[in-house]
């Protein structure tokens, strides 16, 4: 072997080593960058969002960076990146079409976690399901309905439907109606009801309690009773008020009427004819 050929081989070897070294350096740099970004995320993002949301995001970012570092490291080795990316793009489209719903749920889940229209423990009503949120995952939201069963709703459905959250306000109004006898002094009844609510610990001072005539029913005057309560105690307040309101009215001598029907006879001179013979055999004895 002559010197020229040896030089050529050595030069080629040197060039190959340099290329491999460059690839390794690119990959290591990408790896270090991925670790740096992951650590930064752990410091700044992790404390702010729930663990079940943070973990997939961290994995996605970290492995995406590793993938990019790997692809970039292949470039000095002469691998055709264009073909690789085109193939990857096609694969992405195929996977995206095949998993359209799943990806839709994933994106909706991320949006729900960012916007947070509901949180774990919130009493809500979503898409015809009412209950307490027991879990918000990347693909679905679980709600324990009032009577117990846990309902799983895909995040896509949750995100695209009307969500009513019952604890996102500072106060919630308790409202019910109660009927009082037509002989009742309405002013007194209203005062009794207002005082009753004013003495209840969970009826707010402001906005204050209200009681007023709602309508005139068949058997009595129907009063509407309203007070505002802390949202987490809304149901307890409603139940307690409805249970004890009768006692408060009884104490004040206000009667709750029975259903009644007044009969007015047009012809009062002719006696009312009662045929006992048609009242059954017992009546004839």
């Amino acid at each position, binding site marked *: 072997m002559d010197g020229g050929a040896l030089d050529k081989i050595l030069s080629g070897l040197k060039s190959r080593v340099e290329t491999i070294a460059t690839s390794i350096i690119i990959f290591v740099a990408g790896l270090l960058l991925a670790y740096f970004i992951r650590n930064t995320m752990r410091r700044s993002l992790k404390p702010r969002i729930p663990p079940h949301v943070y973990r997939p995001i961290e994995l996605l970012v970290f492995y995406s960076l590793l993938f990019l570092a790997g692809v970039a490291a292949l470039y000095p080795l002469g691998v055709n990146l264009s073909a690789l990316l085109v193939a990857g793009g096609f694969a992405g489209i195929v996977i995206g079409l095949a998993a359209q719903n799943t990806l839709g749920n994933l994106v909706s889940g991320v949006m729900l976690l960012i916007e947070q229209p509901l949180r774990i423990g919130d009493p809500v009503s979503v898409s015809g399901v009412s209950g307490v949120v027991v879990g918000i995952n990347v693909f679905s939201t679980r709600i324990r309905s009032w009577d117990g069963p846990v309902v799983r709703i895909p995040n896509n459905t949750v995100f695209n439907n009307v969500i009513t959250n019952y604890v996102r306000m500072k106060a919630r109004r308790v409202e019910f109606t109660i009927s009082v006898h037509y002989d009742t002094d309405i002013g007194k009844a209203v005062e009794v009801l207002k005082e009753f609510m004013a003495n209840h610990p*969970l009826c707010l001072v*402001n906005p204050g309690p209200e009681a007023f005539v709602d309508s005139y029913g068949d058997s009595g005057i129907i009063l509407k009773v309203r007070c505002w309560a802390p949202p*987490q105690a809304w149901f307890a307040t409603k139940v307690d008020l409805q249970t004890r309101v009768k006692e408060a009215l009884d104490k004040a001598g206000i009667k709750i009427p029975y259903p009644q029907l007044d009969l007015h006879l047009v012809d009062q001179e002719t006696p009312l004819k009662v045929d006992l013979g048609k009242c059954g055999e017992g009546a004839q004895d």
Partner: protein
Amino acid sequence: MPVQASDNELLLNVPWRLEPGSWIEVGEARIERSSNGDVKACDSYGCTEARVPPGSPVYAAPIPSIHRVLAATPYIYVEFEKSVYINEGEDYWALAPYEVEVYTSNIAIARLSPVKVKFTLVGDVVDGILARYYRSEVGYTQDELPDPTGTAVVRFIVYGGDIVLPGVGFNASQSKFYVDDDGLIYYPNLRVEVSEGVVTVKTTGEPPRRGLREIVRTVTHRKVPIALLQQTQPFVMTVQVQRRSLATQ
């Protein structure tokens, strides 16, 4: 006397230490310890009973009134009987509710409210502040205040401008308490900052006057579960600023 007890010695030191056979009354709250050590703690909203070995110490101490009857907010709002015109740098006195926590070792047995509980909303239904409510006289000096049975004395100092205040709210979740030689309970000073019609109230760690002892508890009470995120946030409300016309100045 704001607090009554089976013997005067019990009253001298806060936290109050309940030996078997003793009792203590703070407003409408009453705590009894029977001779066999059992504890019965009652207020207007119910009673709690617990069996405690006679040798175990049982204490009662003031805590912020944010637990009874519902732990819904860390804020207390004291509405004044009459709105007060307050000049910058001046200080005023009012009464604010507190609760009594009964505990043994590091376990809370009961929390009692010496006064009737009410809540109110300061501001809007969506963005306002839900607060424990109390209506109080307000005085230029502490001596003007009525008998503080079941309530603590609170002093607030205004900074930043003259203002008419209908009441003052504050975040009580981290509040300390002080006691004087007569057994009166005090909240720390409240710093009321007025700026462009926005009133921000911060709880300081300063006693309202000299000669008070800080009440040191052997256990720390649990945090308010609902409002964890609001624990250190000051009370902020908007008021209409009363500006004098040039003619009257």
